[in-house]
């Protein structure tokens, strides 16, 4: 099963920063996403990882067409998402749904859980009668592990984890094929994170979903994802199968992220080189030229400052955008399990 569900090519999003009230003048632009190309394969879970501000949410929002890209295209089953409008867009929206980061802001406090989950049916005119809608809503609630009798309660009566389940139920209501989950557990307690992750994995298996799973560190992604894409300052720097990435990171940035992942106590006796990134994250309004990571990269050389490395296959099958990818020894110093 390696056919492509969604393919993203040369996707770019710049946010202009303007000044002036009536005559707006562009003073700078935030390079939120720059020339990112990747494919989402049918049935997989693709992880999208990177530090805060690297453009993950912007990618997610463009994928589900909450934002229009500055340039580049996104095609879903061969159909151009970025050009769709009107009825065609409305139909496409049934195919892909998003799960949001903040379980507080993502549910309207003035609506009951039942009407929040039923909203997709109301918008698309599905399941005409109230009874049918309510039955379907309660089925969905049960499916995500909520007590179906709570359908007429308000969001403030639920915990963060339960609210996130409501968000999942709403996303599933239209039976989409693709779910884009933007840091769905990062606002939750650690003990609850695992429950939501298990829920998503279970649903994926049960419903054959394709999931784009966004996280800001690699530890959460490991057990969720088949493949992982690593972003740095709006660029895609590495894309590999989970196992490959965790055993043999090729991009020095991936290496740095991995060395920040806490290891289980049993393994902590193994000597592990903790690679700390030097310097601050550069501003996305003025990203460094060529390889954007060169200002913080321990392996950077002259060429990194003048020529952007293309995303090419490296040893072990990973795609990485680096002139001097990590060799196996370097990788295993960071990841002792390799």
């Amino acid at each position, binding site marked *: 099963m390696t056919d492509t569900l969604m393919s993203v090519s040369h996707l770019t999003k710049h946010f202009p920063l303007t000044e002036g009230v009536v005559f707006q003048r562009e003073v700078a632009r935030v390079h939120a996403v720059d020339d990112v190309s990747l494919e989402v394969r049918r049935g997989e879970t693709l992880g999208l990882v990177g530090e805060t501000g690297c453009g993950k949410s912007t990618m997610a929002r463009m994928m589900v067409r909450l934002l229009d890209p500055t340039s580049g295209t996104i095609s879903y089953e061969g159909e151009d998402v970025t050009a769709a409008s009107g009825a065609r867009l*409305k139909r496409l929206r049934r195919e892909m749904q998003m799960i949001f980061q903040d379980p507080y802001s993502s549910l*309207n406090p003035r609506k009951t859980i039942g009407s929040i989950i039923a909203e997709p049916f109301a918008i698309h005119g599905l399941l005409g009668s109230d009874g049918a809608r309510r039955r379907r809503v309660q089925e969905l609630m049960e499916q995500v592990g909520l007590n179906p009798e709570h359908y*007429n309660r308000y969001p403030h009566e639920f915990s963060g984890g339960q609210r996130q389940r409501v968000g999942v139920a709403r996303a599933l209501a239209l039976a989409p094929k693709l779910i884009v989950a933007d840091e769905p557990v990062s606002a939750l307690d650690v003990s609850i994170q695992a429950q939501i992750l298990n829920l998503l994995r279970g649903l994926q298996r049960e419903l054959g979903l394709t999931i784009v799973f966004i996280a800001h560190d690699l530890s959460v992604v490991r057990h969720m994802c088949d493949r992982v894409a690593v972003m740095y300052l709006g660029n895609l720097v590495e894309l590999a199968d989970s196992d490959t990435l965790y055993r043999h990171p090729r991009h020095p940035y991936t290496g740095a992220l991995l060395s920040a992942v806490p290891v289980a106590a049993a393994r902590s006796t193994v000597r592990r080189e903790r690679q700390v990134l030097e310097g601050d994250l550069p501003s996305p309004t003025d990203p460094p030229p060529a390889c954007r990571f060169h200002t913080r990269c321990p392996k950077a050389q002259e060429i990194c400052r003048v020529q952007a490395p293309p995303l090419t296959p490296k040893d072990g099958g990973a795609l990485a955008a680096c002139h001097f990818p990590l060799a196996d020894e370097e990788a295993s110093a960071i990841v002792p399990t390799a």
Partner: protein
Amino acid sequence: MSVETFEAAETGGLTSESAVQARTPWQLFWRRLRGDRVALAALAFIVLLVLVALLQAPIRSLLGLPGPNVQNPAALDVFGTPTGPSAEHPFGVDTLGRDVFSRVLAGAAVSLQVALISTGIAVAVGTLLGMLAAFYGGWVDTTFSRMADVLLAFPVLLLALGIAAACSGAEGCAGGLIQPGIGTVVFTIAFINWVFVFRIIRGQTLSLREKEYVEASRSLGASNRRIIFREILPNLVAPIIVYASLLIPQNILLEAALSFLGVGVQPPQASWGAMIADAVTVFDTAWWFMFFPGTALLLTVLAFNLVGDGLQDALNPRSDR
């Protein structure tokens, strides 16, 4: 298993329904308001006032009082000075021999009518424009916001005087749409007030439209219209109620001020403001002519303010986020 539960919930009717029923934000609101004695007393006064204004004719005939515009020269003394409170005229009579009690009742009706209608219009217009400006941004926002800025640059009373004076000619203004009298006063007050509502609603909408539930709704395929009216508006109801309840007393005062200055409600129609103006010259000899409409105005404004404060306290606690 699941299907059974749902059937049970459906056929179980009232019992299972009410067991599941949680407290809605409105139920919480009522609970808090019920505990506020002062606001409740003020609310009772307002209800009483509304009833009295609606039932003024039966009340008059019950007490055997003349209508508000009936002049009775016999009620003036030999020097033409109005007589004070008595059995026939509980609040005395004015300089034309009209019954002050009847006129205070008629004035209540005018006050309430003008304040409620003009506040209603201002809130409706301000809310709609505020939501549109904040939601769409761009030139829509620029247009309405600049209009609001210009209006806010004028002193309220001066602007009101100007509009009221312009519209109180025989043919009215806005192409005859606004007729002199109560219509003009309502228009003037609404025209001045929508700006305040607009600014508050615009600010609130700016923050509401960034909420993830708005994005969720959009990604489900909701139209702008649906998002504005179904997602954003319900979250504005509380601030709208609070703000309207604070605007009403201000508008009662504004109506009184306009009528006092002679550009509001036109004679012979009764208005507390106009009565006070007429009473100024005879205050030394006929205190009741100013005292009763003045007290009515004071109590009414106070009651609305107290209710407004109570509503604000009951609606605003952090409990509903």
